[in-house]
Structure formats: C-alpha cells, structure tokens
C-alpha cells in the first residue's frame, strides 16, 4: 500500500507539572489562541482564569430543566387526580398538592440529575476520535502527564511558528498531531 499524505490536525506539547501548565495557559491566552485546551490527569484550580474561560452554562441548563420538570409533574398530578380520574380518599381534596410534594421533589431531582450528566456530556464535546489521540505520548494524560494542545482549525495556527512558540513557553515533546484518515 502506498503511504498517503498525512494531515496535520494540531500540535501537542507536554509540560512539567501543574505550575508550568498554568503559566503556559496564561501565555497561550495572551497570544490569542482560540482552538486550544490544556489536558491534565485531574482538574487544576485557577485554570479557568489562566485560560480566560467563561463559567460553565450547565447550572442554567439544570435549573431550567428542574423548573420544567417541576411544573410538568405538578400539572400531571393535577390532571390525573382532579380531572381525568377523580376519587376521594381519606376525605382529602382532589388536588391534594401538599401530599404531592414528595413526588414533585423526586421528579425535580431526577430531571436535574439527567440534565447535569447528559448536559455535561454534551458540553464537554467528547469524541472517540479526537486529534489528540493520534499522539502515543498523550496516554500519560490520565496518569501523570500535563499537555497543551492547539488545533489546526485555530485562526492563528501556523505549523512552524506555533510549534516554536510552544517550545518557547516551556513545552517538551512537542509533536504534530497527524493522521492519514
């Protein structure tokens, strides 16, 4: 089989520990990169600030879904017990909303949890096939490796200059993320 042209999808650089990584992140931010990320085995405090990241929107999503779920189940319990299938039990009103609070609460919690988890999975943009996985060295990210990755889609990406910049700010094992598919 003939070797095909390998496309460069980005550059990956390794850094020595959380201190170096957070310094590098601030420099990347100041340089004006957009399509980049830092990778670490665990969350690093203060990294959002160093990267210039905004707060996650997840909280709003969860609040909205909890409200929607709460109103939904309130209406549903009302409709089933006071409209569609009315019956009196222990002398309570058809719509005994106080007795429905445990159900209301459970549904709010359930919807919040689903939104928190599946919303998070949506927001983190996880892909089984991401350019960083072209690097063999990247396997260290879940062990003890700290990395900065820049994608080629970034407007200020330049194959030579970006690589030099990553080396200047202290990156080691700087490598191109290349694949032939």
């Amino acid at each position: 089989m003939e070797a095909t042209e390998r496309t460069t999808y980005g550059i990956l650089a390794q850094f020595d520990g959380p201190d170096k990584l957070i310094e590098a992140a601030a420099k990347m931010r100041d340089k004006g990169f957009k399509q980049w990320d830092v990778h670490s085995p665990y969350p690093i405090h203060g990294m959002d600030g160093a990267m210039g990241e905004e707060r996650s929107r997840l909280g709003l999503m969860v609040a909205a879904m909890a409200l929607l779920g709460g109103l939904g189940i309130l209406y549903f319990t009302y409709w089933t017990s006071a409209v569609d299938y009315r019956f009196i039990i222990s002398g309570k009103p058809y719509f005994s909303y106080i007795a429905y609070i445990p159900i209301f609460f459970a549904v709010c919690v359930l919807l919040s949890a689903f939104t928190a988890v599946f919303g998070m999975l949506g927001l983190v943009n996880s892909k089984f096939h991401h350019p960083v996985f072209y690097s063999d060295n990247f396997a260290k990210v879940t062990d003890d490796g700290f990395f900065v990755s820049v994608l080629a889609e970034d407007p200020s990406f330049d194959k030579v200059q970006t690589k030099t910049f990553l080396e200047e700010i202290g990156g080691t094992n700087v490598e191109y993320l290349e694949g032939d598919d």
Partner: protein
Amino acid sequence: MLGNPGLHDVTETIAGLAERKETPIWWWVAMGISTPIAIMLLAVVGYLIWNGIGVWGVNNPVGWGWAIVNFVWWVGIGHAGTLISAILHLLRQKWRTSINRFAEAMTLFAVMCAGLFPAIHVGRIWVIYYMFPLPNQMAMWPNWRSPLLWDMFAVGTYFTVSLLFWYTGLIPDLATLRDRAKNLTRKKIFGALSLGWRGGNRQWKHYELAYLILAGISTPLVLSVHSVVSTDFATSILPGWHTTIFPPYFVAGAIFSGFAMVITLAILARIVMPETKNYITMDHLEKMAKVIMVTGLMVGYAYSTEFFIAWYSAWEYERFAFINRAFGPFAWAYWIMITCNVLTPQIFWFKKMRQSVVVLFIASIFVNIGMWFERFVIVMTLHRDYLPSSWGYYTPTWVDIATYIGTFGLFFTLFLLFLRFVPIIAIAEVKAVLPHAQPHGHH
C-alpha cells in the same frame, strides 16, 4: 494518604488492582460462596412468585414482616455512600476521596437489594406496572396521596441518581484504564466506557460543575428518601408509628448503619488488598467511628424521646405500645436493638477503641445487627393494637430467611465484581488532593 505517593504511584496502585492478570484466591473463594447464595435468592423469589406471599410469615395482625424490615435496612445502608460522596463533597472533606468510590458502589448494590423487596411483595407481580403512572385499560391513575407511591418515586430516583453520580465519577478513571490497556479488547471496552475523555480543562470545568450539582441535589435527596420511607409508617394511625419524629430518626439511623457497613467493607478490603492501606487509612476508619458514635447517640436520643412522648401524650394506647415494645413478647428484639445501637457505639469514646481494627469490625457488625432489629421492632408494633382479641405473634418462615440471606449473596457477588474490575478508589480525585497537585498561589 500515607507514604506520600506521586501521581504515577497512585495510578499504578489503584489501576493495577483492577488490571491484575491473576485473580487472587480469596476472590474465587468469596465468589464461590456468594454466587450460589445469589442463585438461591433467584430460586426463592421464583418460589414466592409461583405460590404467592402466603409462603411468608405475614398474616393478621402482622401484615408486614421481614420484607419491609429488609427493605428499610438495605436502603439505610445505601445512604452512607451518598452521604460520603455528596454531603462530604459539599463540606470539602478531602479525606472522602479515598472511600467515596466503594461507598457509592455499596450504595448501588444495597439499593438493588432493597428494591427487590417492594417489587416482590405485591403478590401479583405481573401487574406491578399499576404503580407507574401509565395509561392503562382501566383508565386509572395512581393515588399520588399514598406514601407507597412516594416511596417508589423516591427510591427509583435515588437509585438512578446514585448510578449517574457513580458513573460520572468513574469517567476519568475509566479513561485511565483505557490508556493503560495492553490489548485491543480492553482498549475498546474502556474506550467506549470512558466516552472519549481527554482530560481537557474545557471538559473539567463542566465536569466539576456537574459533579457539584449532583452532590448538591443528592444531599436533599438522601435525606428525603429515608424520610419518605419513614412516612410509610408515620402516615398510618397506629400507636407507635404515628409520630413526627420518624423522618429525622430514620435518617440518623440510616447514616448510622451505612457507616457501619462502610467500615465492615473497608476493613475487609484492607485485609484482602493490602495495597489499599495507604489510601484507606486508620484515620479514615477513626473518622467513620466518630460518625457512628454521633449518629448512635442521635438514635439513642430518638428512642428515649419516643418513650417520653408516649408518656407525655397521656394516651393509653400510645403508652401501651411502648411498654409492650420493651417488656412485651418482642422484648428480646427490643433489648438486642438497645444493646447494639445505644451501648455498642459508646466504646468509641476511647481513641484506643477507634483505632483497633478488631474492635471496629466487631462493633460495625453489631451496629448492623442492631439496626436490622430496630426496623424489626418498629414493624412488630403491629402485633398488638387496640383490640386484645386480635393480638398475635409473628414468626418468619424459611422463605423469609432464605430471601434475606439471598440478598447478601446478591450484594457480595456484585461487590466482588466491582472489586475485581473497577478502580475501587477515585484515581483522579485522589490525585487532585495530593500535596503538590495544585499550582502555588491557587487553592
């Protein structure tokens, strides 16, 4: 953390346990005991469904027997896992990172065992879908005013949220197993399970918030679940059950028994997997012993409050219910409860006792026996109500006993599978609290 491990040491130790090529002997022995018992559970449940709940010891006047005792007991045990993972997370108790993963696993398996009992106790299990608000051929809807329905929603939600919480915590660690996988099958399995996790900060920021939200909603959830369980009793008009103390009293009891079970399992894990001793330290066991002592005092306080209120109510039936509890036909159960739940935890006033593995292990078993008897004592309130002509006694049948023992088989089979194949300590979380893990100037 003992031994001052580095990032790589943490990965090696914990992931290494899940990646062992040779399955240790103790695992096969334990599996060899628990699996047949789990299969026996399947058989007795089949027997029960075939014959109906007449095979249990329940009858008039005691219409609730071991099934609800076991249900409340297992749910209660589960609560410690959520307490450790959620409430201690909100309180920023860093020591929880070593024990939260397996406490959460314990929660899941305990809730599975618990959920079995309400499911099989309904008699006609093939129409159990009536419990769900589904449109059906009779154009009926569930009665939302019933605590039994609240229970179904509470426990169902609890299991689902616990599972989501557990899995969310596992994602980065499954990615660790993916990156360490030596063969293609493991790579594919853990690659799929870790959902393409790449440890990016743009991922961590959403991940951490999701984790915080889950902790935030699990905290009121865990308190509400056992409160709702207690309303199964408290909304009835039976003397001895119809009290407002039930929700907090049940929650304290749940935490009490759950922490005892965590201690039991942690000590066993330390014995069979000595590698974990640097992570699950004596300090952890001691802290949990303190929680047991505090909640044990709460439970003891609740017992005495019940008696005080019975006396203070000046209502003869209420008074009788409690005097009968302590000195009636089921007095033996009552005093087992008092011995195990009120007297046993008092030994933890002494540091020496909190630091002795043997004492901790025996005390934790005692607490769980005591908490089983607490629920038994409460349910047995049924045996003597207003009319002496309808008094009776309750004796379990062999099916009751076999079902209860069977749930241990199910619990330990699942727990052993967990110990063998999943990182039993949260790798990413432990790393984040190591001494040099965070940059200087940031905390």
